[in-house]
């Protein structure tokens, strides 16, 4: 709890950035992994970049728990698979490690699976989906359609639609997409959120979550989320910029509150790569829309209700969590 607010982190990852997880058949594996590490370092705040924490390794679930739930006022989190095989043998954030974290801390952590239709084909991805949902208890599925080679489109009726159909058959109603923020030397265009519009029309029972505000495609993400009732936005690591470029965050949040509303915005830390979430959470509580942006652009002030929605209520509603009951349960534990 943060000042009485329920905090539900939409995305944490128990990464494996160790040398042992790098693919030997990819000449760009080490370089790309190091770019990911550098990107994480660039967004981390003081205290997480002083060399006391080694990020180039396989994280344990206990360490991630400490970072997110002990050092920060987080109540719940969704631990998400990162189904990127481009440079990693067992993906960037492996399935079984994320599952282990949800198993270890079932009251606080939900498991989000992840598959890719081009890794071993659509049929294999469907089998993975069945396994991750039925056997591992995945509550949501994460997709990464952008790759260095072999990007796929989220509105591809042959590659993507069978996965959405299977999700619904399995009772999954929330699917999530890494958009924007290209990793390594991926084509940035593959990360546009535009290809989620057709599936959002064709699968109205499914809720689509766009991560990272699709930067640099913020305007697209804004206009898409404003118009589609089943498209949500995750501020995954976006609040990290509050210290680096507060004006940028104020402009983004101002536009989001004006056009989309906090009922469709979710906070996500992207720990562990981005460090512990405590500094971002406290900075967000102090963040306001300044006078000139309110007057000149008509951006509304951030209300207490907005902070509650963004920090936890929106994602809790999406995941069917009874917040009052959960708070009671956590208080008793």
């Amino acid at each position, binding site marked *: 709890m943060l000042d009485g607010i329920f905090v539900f982190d939409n995305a944490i990852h128990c990464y494996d950035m160790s040398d042992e997880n790098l693919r030997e058949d990819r000449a760009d594996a080490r370089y790309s992994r190091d770019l990911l590490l550098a990107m994480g370092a660039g967004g981390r705040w003081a205290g997480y970049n002083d060399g006391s924490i080694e990020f180039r390794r396989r994280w344990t679930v206990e360490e991630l728990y400490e970072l997110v739930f002990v050092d920060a006022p987080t109540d719940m989190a969704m631990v998400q698979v990162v189904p990127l095989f481009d440079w990693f043998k067992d993906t960037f954030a492996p399935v079984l490690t994320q599952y282990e974290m949800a198993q270890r801390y079932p009251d606080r952590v939900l498991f989000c699976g992840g598959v890719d239709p081009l890794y071993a084909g659509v049929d294999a991805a469907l089998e993975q989906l069945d396994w991750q949902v039925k056997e591992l208890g995945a509550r949501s599925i994460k997709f990464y359609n952008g790759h260095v080679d072999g990007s796929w489109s989220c509105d591809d009726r042959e590659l993507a639609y069978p996965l959405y159909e299977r999700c619904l058959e399995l009772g999954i109603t929330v699917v999530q997409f890494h958009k924007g923020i290209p990793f390594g030397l991926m084509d940035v265009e593959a990360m546009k959120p535009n290809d989620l519009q057709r599936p959002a029309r064709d699968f109205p029972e499914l809720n689509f979550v766009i991560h990272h505000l699709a930067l640099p495609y913020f305007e697209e993400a804004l206009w898409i*989320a*404003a118009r*589609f009732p089943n498209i949500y936005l995750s501020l995954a690591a976006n609040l990290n910029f509050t210290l680096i470029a507060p004006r940028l965050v104020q402009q983004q949040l101002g536009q989001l509150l004006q*056009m989309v*509303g906090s009922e*469709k915005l979710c906070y996500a830390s992207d720990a562990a790569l981005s460090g512990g979430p405590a500094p971002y959470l406290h900075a967000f509580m102090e963040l306001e829309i300044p006078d000139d942006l*309110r*007057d000149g652009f*008509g951006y*509304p002030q951030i209300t207490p209700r907005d902070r509650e929605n963004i920090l936890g209520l929106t994602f809790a509603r999406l995941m069917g969590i009874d917040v009052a009951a959960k708070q009671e349960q956590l208080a008793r534990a």
Partner: protein
Amino acid sequence: MSADVLERLDELRPVLAAHAGGIELVEVRNGVARVRYTGMCTGCPLRPVTTASTVRPALLAVEGVEAVEVEGSRISAEAEARLAVAFGRTIRWNQ
């Protein structure tokens, strides 16, 4: 009070249909009527104008409604004040 608000929203529907849009009631609580635009109005950047010129005056005229909020669309108090002044000169519901 919800029934009265719903009735008033029914009266507004033809107006919003001219925008190829619509409106629905989310809730009425503590005198605050909370609505949501539908159809082509859903993500329209001009929702605040429709709210200030048409929807808010209509709902504030319902007894017991003290404020009107729109889910997914909000502008600053400064911008609201400008719209209120502009539309206050010309818009009167039931007059």
